[in-house]
């Protein structure tokens, strides 16, 4: 088990190196002179020369690549051209926001999705099954920007229950340590016994997480249903029934653990997609996350920011895949040996 995990972690290094290399060449191969693009049409020749020198663009490509590599290893992504702040600092602030949003969206999607899928499979071809699956079809086809706006209209404007956007009530000042507001709010709760921060952070999370989680929820529900149906047909389910094991235990322990394998894969993929796909949600709910930031950096041709952002998101994607693989081997003993 341990050696399997170590082997998988070892495989992480070449993957990440590939990602980093790809990002470098994609940007250096993109058309146009970055210095010209950054400074605009009216920049003077000296200004251009100066910037090229600063960015190291005047050196041969392989030298650029190796100095780029050595900087990345030290987590030095350079300075943002638009804000002038180190890219890593900006990421450190924005990335936790996206991560938090994606995590809660996935928590919601997996929890509800698995429950709906299991119920659907066990109540196959009943009105409940049809209702859940039609609901799931709606969920998959729902555009996030529209769903987000409708949620705001109902719960914020109409019912006045939840805030329209942001991560926390702006009148509250919370000391931040991790920039994961839920964690920071929990720290505040334990240090000061003040629960207002946590309440506010959670309230701000609900709508964006619901909007972002809808599509994965629908996909997970459908995957769970078909996977459960497949497993419930297996001989070992018949064995368990013949042994008198109660139906509830058969479904939630004997069948679900087997059915989880494809579900885990889907959850992993969806989580990765959420990280990069959160831009729309972040825009609608004024969520200061990395998706929106990368989007702005691309339109501003802020190369260092784009590079840093892509590398961080890819790294998280790869790490999530690793976690999925490890989880897979925990659930499925047959994987461990191979």
């Amino acid at each position, binding site marked *: 088990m341990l050696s399997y995990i170590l082997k998988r972690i070892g495989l992480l290094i070449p993957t990440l190196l590939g990602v980093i290399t790809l990002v470098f060449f994609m940007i250096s191969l993109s058309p146009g002179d970055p210095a010209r693009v950054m400074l605009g049409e009216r920049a003077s020749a000296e200004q251009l020369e100066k910037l090229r020198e600063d960015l190291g663009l005047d050196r041969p490509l392989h030298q650029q690549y190796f100095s780029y590599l050595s900087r990345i290893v030290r987590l030095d992504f350079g300075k943002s051209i638009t804000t002038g702040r180190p890219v890593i600092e900006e990421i450190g602030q924005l990335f936790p926001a996206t991560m938090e949003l994606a995590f809660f969206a996935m928590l919601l999607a997996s929890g509800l999705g698995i429950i709906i899928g299991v119920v659907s499979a066990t109540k196959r071809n009943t009105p409940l099954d049809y209702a859940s699956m039609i609901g799931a079809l709606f969920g998959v086809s729902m555009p996030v920007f529209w769903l987000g706006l409708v949620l705001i209209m109902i719960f914020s404007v109409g019912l006045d229950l939840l805030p329209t956007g942001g991560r926390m009530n702006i009148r509250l000042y919370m000391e931040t340590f991790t920039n994961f507001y839920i964690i920071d709010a929990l720290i505040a709760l334990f240090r000061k016994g003040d629960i207002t921060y946590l309440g506010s952070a959670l309230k701000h999370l609900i709508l964006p997480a619901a909007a972002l989680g809808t599509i994965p929820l629908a996909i997970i529900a459908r995957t769970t249903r078909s996977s459960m149906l497949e497993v419930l047909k297996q001989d070992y389910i018949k*064995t368990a029934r013949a042994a008198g094991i109660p139906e509830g235990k058969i479904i939630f322990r004997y069948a679900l653990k087997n059915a989880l394998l494809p579900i885990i894969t889907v959850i992993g993929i969806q989580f990765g997609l959420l990280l990069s796909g959160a831009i729309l949600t972040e825009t609608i709910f004024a969520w200061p996350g990395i998706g929106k930031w990368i989007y702005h950096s691309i339109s501003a041709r802020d190369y260092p920011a784009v590079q840093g952002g892509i590398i961080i998101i890819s790294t998280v994607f790869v790490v999530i895949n690793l976690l999925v693989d490890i989880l897979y081997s925990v659930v499925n003993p047959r994987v461990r*040996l191979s």
Partner: protein
Amino acid sequence: MKKHDQTTTANLLEIQDLSVHFNTQRGVVKAVRDLSLTIKKEETLALVGESGCGKSVTAHSINGLIPVPPGIIEKGKIIFEGENLLQKTEKEMQHIRGVRISMIFQEPMTSLNPVFTIGRQIADVFLTHHDIPREEAFSRAVNLLDMVKIPSPETRAKSYPHQLSGGMRQRAMIAMALASPEPGLMIADEPTTALDVTIQAQILRLMVSLKKRVGMSLLLITHDMGVVAETADRVIVMYAGRKVEEADVYSLFDKPAHPYTLGLLNSLPSNRKYAGASRLEAIPGTVPDLLTINDGCPFANRCPRAGDICRSVFPGETPLTEHHSVWCHNHVR
């Protein structure tokens, strides 16, 4: 048929006129028709016939494991220890399944849950039927694995099914069936079909010795006449959902009365007449489609002795001796 009624008290299980149908998109499949059988205490009854003759459907009916729909129990009674199982609720059946009636399936490869250790799976059966701590259930599971002669049972209990050979898995399945608190009847649905011949013999011997030790009855479902000869006390031969012959094992092998039984025995490679022969004798034709089957004898279209009446009327019981009956208009004499 009436003779069974006199011996009801000694009968552990009695099936009366059972018919099981399946509604499919192409029509109604009459999987089992008017089947009656009895199993006495500590007896081994073999249910013999080729694939699709209704053996497994009969077994699943006893256990209440016929999926409804598409399955329907058309008529009949399944009386186990004096109670009709077909009138029991699902909840009541859970106190019979795995408690009094346990089951072993054909495919040891797929009949064990791949994501739990075998010790855990056996322990779960204990935990379902007894109020005992988890550790004790597990150590009882280890004892059972020892009883079914799995070497180093402590380590094996912690193995997953894919780490065991086919024979070991089938032993584990038997151990699981023995985890029932008071096993009265063990139904073994083709328990040795997926195993190679040497392992088959071991498993059969194991089942027979355990049956004696625990004092239970065995319903053995098989298509293998060799298995029947080795283990059964009595035999019922089924063909296309019907019982066609019933006898004690000696009479059946000695004086098969139904043309189908004769055909089965004639096609055995171990049959004496094949000494030096190069081809085995086969029964001509194929099994009739259960969708379009009529009320005649289902074997009529393949039967060398069939007459006109065979195609329209299924025959009644012809008792040959006290323990031997045949359902044939024109049986072998």
